[in-house]
């Protein structure tokens, strides 16, 4: 997987209902966003579905490099960003 992550990219993952609603599990984008918020704005431009599931979603959960993060979290090349709904384990 590391080989896929060229230096100037970020790896994005979508889990559970998000993956189904957005129709994809992962993708790589150029690392041209300073924060998660900027990335979300860019994804929202793709259409109503993306805007509703991610950008407008008050329950949106975010992880950056396997740690819980927020919209304000800074991004850099090689980061792994994950978007998912509230967890329901246990």
């Amino acid at each position, binding site marked *: 997987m590391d080989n896929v992550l060229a230096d100037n990219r970020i790896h994005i993952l979508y889990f*559970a209902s998000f993956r189904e609603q957005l129709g994809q599990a992962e993708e790589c984008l150029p690392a041209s966003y300073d924060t998660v918020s900027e990335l979300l704005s860019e994804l929202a431009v793709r259409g109503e579905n993306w805007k509703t599931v991610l950008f407008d979603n008050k329950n949106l959960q975010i992880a950056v490099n*396997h*740690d*819980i993060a927020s919209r304000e979290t800074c991004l850099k090349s090689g980061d792994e960003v*994950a978007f998912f709904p509230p*967890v*329901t*384990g*246990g």
Partner: protein
Amino acid sequence: MNHREHQSELPFVKVQQADFDLTAEITQLRQGHKNIGAVVSFVGTVRDINEGDDVSILELEHYPNMTEKALEKIRLEAHQRWSLEASLIIHRIGKLHPTDQIVLVAVASQHRESAFHAAHFIMDFLKTNAPFWKKETLPNGEVRWVDSRVSDAEAKQRWDI
């Protein structure tokens, strides 16, 4: 994915499809600790009913790598808060059925109070901080994602974070 590799790095956190044997796990957890006076374990099992509907299959998805890291973080936090000798978290993934075991939290300490509190704490945080998602299949074939519960978020508040 990399479960095997991660299990060896984090021997007290296991994310696995296989079932677990409570007695065997506790025997192993206690091994080499002669000062343990209390072991508290919690086993979560799959109910055959949710939101008033019968459930025939429960499927567990998770975020490989982050799951193990999140569980280990919760476990270590418990060790910081209470005086514990050992602890273990096992969470199953994949397809499960009613009555199946789904999660095990076991905590061992010198005295019972620490073990009771720590087991409770670990479960409360696992519910809200570990990236697992449940999808249930009803007998009529309908498939739906299980909603998170407000009560789980509230339960965490009791620990004063």
